[in-house]
C-alpha cells in the first residue's frame, strides 16, 4: 500500500522527468530534495492533476491513478500545498481553508466551518481568527492558511511543495507535528523542501532528484546534510561554511532612532556599521519586514529618524527616493510581486534602479547597458541565455541574483535584504551568501532579515532579535547561538506558548 511511481516521464522543451521511479509507503513521510529545475515541482504537478505525464504509471493504494485534472486528483484523495499560494484575498480565513470542501448542503454551514477551522488553526498553533480577511495577512500567515487548507481534507496522499519557505522554525515545527499525526493515521506524505535539516528531521526516507532522475535514496537516518548537498549538486565544494572569519566593522553607517510607522508596534533604535552583516531574527510577525520597510521609507514615518552617516555628513532619510539617492538598496521579501519586472529582459531588470549610468542626458546607450549587465552576469554567475532573456525564464535563485545585481549596478552603501534566499536552491543560496560577505568586505553595510536561523548564524556579524515588534536584544558574534537567539525571540511571549 502507498504510492508507487514507475517510469514517469515528462518533456516540456527539454526532458524534465526521465524514467522516474519512486515509492512511498503508506503512513510514512518521504522527503524529496534537489536543486531548482531537478523536477520536484513537476512531479507534484503530475500527481495533483495540474499537468499530464508524458509516460509512466502511478499507483495509489493499489489502484492506478488517473489524474486528468485537479478535480479528479481531489476525488482520489490527493491534497497539494503548492509553492504559489492559491488563496483568495476577498474571502476570510475560514472560507479559504474550507474552499475545497465547504460544509452544508444548500446553504453554507458557517458555524461548522468556523469550528473546523479553529481546530485546524490550533493544531498548527496559528493565532488567527477564522473571520480575518486573507487579504490582510502577511506572507507567513498566508502560507500557514494555505497549509491548513491542504490539511482540511482527509487525504490519502499529502503533497507539500516548500511548505515552510515563509515560516520560522517554530512554525515549521508545528507543521511537522501535524504531518506526523496525519502519517500515523495512514496517509502518505511527500515533502519537498530546500531546508535539508527539516527534511532529515521530519522524513522517514529521502529521495534526491537531479535533472529529472532519482540519483540517491535512503532512510533519513543514514544521511547527513553534507551528503544530501553532494548528491543534489554532484559536487561537494559547496558545503564549506566560513564561520570563523572575523569582520572588522568600520564606523557607524546607519543610525535608526525611535523609528515608528503605522505598521510597527513599537519604536525601534539600532546602529549598523560599515563592513558588517547585521541580521534581524525573530518569530513570524515579530516585525522584521515592517522595520526594513520603515528604514527604506516605503511607509511614512510617524516619529523617529533614520540617518545615514558619510564621514561627517549626516543624511536624514524619510522617503524611498531619498533613500535610493543616498545609496540604499532593498531586496524585498516577495520576489514575484515586489522584486522582478516579469516579461521584461534580464538587462531591463538589472539596470532599472540606475539608468543614469547607462544614459547620456536621458538617452539610453544600449551598448553601455549590455556591457554593464554582462559584467554583472559574469560576476554573480547568473545562469541566463543572455541579457535579453525574459527574467521569468530564470530559476528563482538566478532571479534573486538579478535583483542583487540591480543594486550592485546602483553601487549602494547600505543594502537591506528581506528573506533573500527564500525558495532558492542550495547552490544559489551559498553563492548569495558569498556575495554578501564579499560586499561586506568591501565596506558595505548589509542588513538581512531571515526566518531561517541557521542562515543568520552562519552569515551575520551581529544579530538583533525582534519579538512582538520590539527589538529585544542585539548579539555579537561570540554571544549568539541558536539557544540565546530563540530565548530572546520568545522573551515577550509567555512561557505557555513556548511549550
Amino acid at each position: 500500500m502507498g504510492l508507487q511511481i514507475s517510469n514517469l516521464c515528462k518533456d516540456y522543451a527539454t526532458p524534465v522527468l526521465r524514467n522516474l521511479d519512486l515509492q512511498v509507503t503508506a503512513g510514512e513521510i518521504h522527503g524529496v530534495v534537489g536543486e531548482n529545475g531537478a523536477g520536484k515541482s513537476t512531479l507534484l504537478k503530475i500527481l495533483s492533476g495540474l499537468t499530464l505525464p508524458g509516460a509512466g504509471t502511478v499507483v495509489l493504494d493499489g489502484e492506478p491513478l488517473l489524474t486528468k485534472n485537479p478535480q479528479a486528483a481531489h476525488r482520489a484523495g490527493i491534497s497539494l500545498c503548492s509553492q504559489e499560494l492559491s488563496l483568495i484575498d476577498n474571502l476570510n480565513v475560514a472560507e479559504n481553508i474550507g474552499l475545497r470542501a465547504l460544509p452544508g448542503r444548500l446553504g453554507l454551514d458557517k458555524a461548522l466551518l468556523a469550528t473546523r477551522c479553529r481546530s485546524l488553526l490550533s493544531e498548527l498553533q496559528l493565532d488567527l481568527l477564522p473571520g480575518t480577511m486573507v487579504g490582510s495577512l502577511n506572507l507567513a500567515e498566508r502560507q500557514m492558511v494555505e497549509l491548513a487548507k491542504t490539511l482540511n481534507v482527509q487525504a490519502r496522499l499529502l503533497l507539500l511543495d516548500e511548505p515552510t519557505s515563509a515560516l520560522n522554525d517554530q512554525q515549521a515545527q508545528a507543521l511537522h507535528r501535524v504531518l506526523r499525526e496525519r502519517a500515523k493515521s495512514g496517509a502518505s506524505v511527500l515533502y519537498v523542501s530546500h531546508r535539508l535539516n527539516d527534511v532529515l528531521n521530519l522524513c522517514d526516507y529521502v529521495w534526491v532528484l537531479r535533472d529529472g532522475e532519482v540519483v540517491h535514496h535512503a532512510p533519513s537516518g543514514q544521511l547527513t546534510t553534507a551528503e544530501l548537498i553532494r548528491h543534489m549538486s554532484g559536487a561537494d565544494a559547496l558545503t564549506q561554511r566560513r564561520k570563523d572569519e572575523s569582520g572588522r566593522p568600520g564606523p557607524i553607517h546607519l543610525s535608526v532612532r525611535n523609528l515608528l510607522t503605522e505598521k510597527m508596534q513599537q519604536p525601534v533604535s539600532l546602529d549598523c556599521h560599515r563592513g558588517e552583516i547585521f541580521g534581524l531574527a525573530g518569530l513570524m510577525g515579530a516585525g522584521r519586514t515592517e522595520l526594513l520597510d520603515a528604514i527604506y521609507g516605503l511607509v511614512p514615518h510617524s516619529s523617529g529618524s533614520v540617518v545615514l552617516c558619510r564621514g561627517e555628513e549626516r543624511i536624514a532619510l524619510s522617503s524611498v527616493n531619498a533613500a535610493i539617492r543616498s545609496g540604499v538598496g532593498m531586496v524585498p521579501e516577495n520576489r514575484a510581486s515586489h522584486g522582478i519586472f516579469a516579461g521584461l529582459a534580464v538587462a531591463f531588470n538589472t539596470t532599472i534602479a540606475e539608468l543614469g549610468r547607462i544614459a547620456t542626458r536621458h538617452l539610453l546607450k544600449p551598448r553601455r547597458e549590455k556591457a554593464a549587465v554582462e559584467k554583472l552576469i559574469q560576476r554573480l554567475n547568473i545562469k541566463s541565455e543572455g541579457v535579453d532573456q525574459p527574467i521569468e525564464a530564470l530559476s528563482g535563485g538566478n532571479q534573486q541574483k538579478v535583483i542583487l545585481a540591480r543594486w550592485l549596478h546602483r553601487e549602494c552603501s547600505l543594502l537591506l535584504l528581506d528573506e533573500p534566499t527564500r525558495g532558492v536552491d542550495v547552490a544559489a543560496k551559498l553563492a548569495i551568501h558569498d556575495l554578501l560577505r564579499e560586499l561586506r568586505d568591501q565596506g558595505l553595510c548589509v542588513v538581512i532579515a531571515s526566518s531561517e536561523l541557521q542562515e543568520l548564524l552562519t552569515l551575520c556579524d551581529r544579530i538583533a532579535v525582534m519579538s512582538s515588534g520590539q527589538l529585544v536584544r542585539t548579539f555579537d558574534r561570540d554571544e549568539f547561538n541558536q539557544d540565546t537567539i530563540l530565548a530572546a525571540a520568545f522573551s515577550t511571549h509567555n512561557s505557555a506558548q513556548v511549550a
Partner: protein
Amino acid sequence: MSSMLLRWLNQYLVLISLLLILATFALAAENFLSFATFSAILNQLPALTLVTVGMTFVLICGGIDLSVGSVLALSSAVIGISVAAGFSIPVAALAGVTAGGLAGLVNGLLGSYLRLPVFIVTLGMLEAARGAAYLITDSQTVYIGSAIQGLVQPMSWLGLTPAFISALVIVVVAHFVLTSTVFGRHVIAVGTNPEAARISGIDPKRTLLVVLCLSGVLAGLAGLMNAAYLGSTDPNAGSGLELAAIAAAVIGGTSLMGGRGSIFSAFIGVLIIAVLQNGLAQIGVSEPFKRVVTGVVIVLAVVLDRWRADRSF
C-alpha cells in the same frame, strides 16, 4: 529554415496583416489602388494617430484613458470659438492644445495623487469634457474657414500634408522616447510592476501623471488636426474615438494589463483601421456590416498577438 520564417512572421505580423488587407481591397474595389485613395487615407490619419500614441503610452503605463475622444472635441471646440472670437489660428490652436493638456492634468492629478481608479476618472472626463464642448459652442457646429485647412493641404512634393508629417514625426519621437530614454523605461517599469518600480526608486504616481498629461496634450493636438480636416468644429467630433484608439493599440500588440506595447506597431494598427474604413466605404458595404468586419479584425488581431506571445517562449 521554417523557424527562421516563423520568427520573421512573428516580428512583422501586424505589418503583414496590413498588407493582406490592402491586397484584399485592391482586388475587391475599383480605383482602390490609386494615389487619391492614399491621400484620402493619409488625410484621415493624423487625429487617430495622435490619440493612439497617447493611448499606447497610458496603456503601457498600466492605465487607460477613456476621455481622449471628448478631449479632442473640447480642444477643437476651443479652437473654433477662439477663431470665431477673432483670434489668429496659431493662438486658437495653442488654446485648444492647452485645453487638452489641462484635461489630461486633471485626469493625472485625480488618478495618481488622489489614488482614484484611472478608468473611473477618465470615464468622468469623457462626460465632462464632452459637456464642456457643448457648453462653449452652444451645441452648434462652428465654421472656422479655409485658413486652418492649410494644415491639410498637400505640399507640392509627395502629396503629404503638414498634418500628416507632424503626426508621423510625433510617432517617431514617441517611439524613440519609449524605447530609448530613461522616461520610457520608467513607463514600462511602472506598467509592469508598480510596487517593484517604487522599490527601485521610480515614482509610479508621477510617471502616471506625466503620461496622462501627455495623452491630454496629444488629444488636444488631435482636436487641431480634426478641425483642420473638417474646416469646422462639431462638438460631437471624436465620439467613440477612445475605442478606435484602444483597438489600434491592441492590434499593434499593446497589452491592456500594462508593460507591453510599441508605438510603431500601434501606428500600423491605426493604418489597419483607416484602410479598413476606407476600403469598406469604397466597396459600398452597409454600415452594420462595416462594424461587424471591424470588430472581427480587432478580435483576430488579439488572437494573432496571443499566438505570437505564446510562440516567443
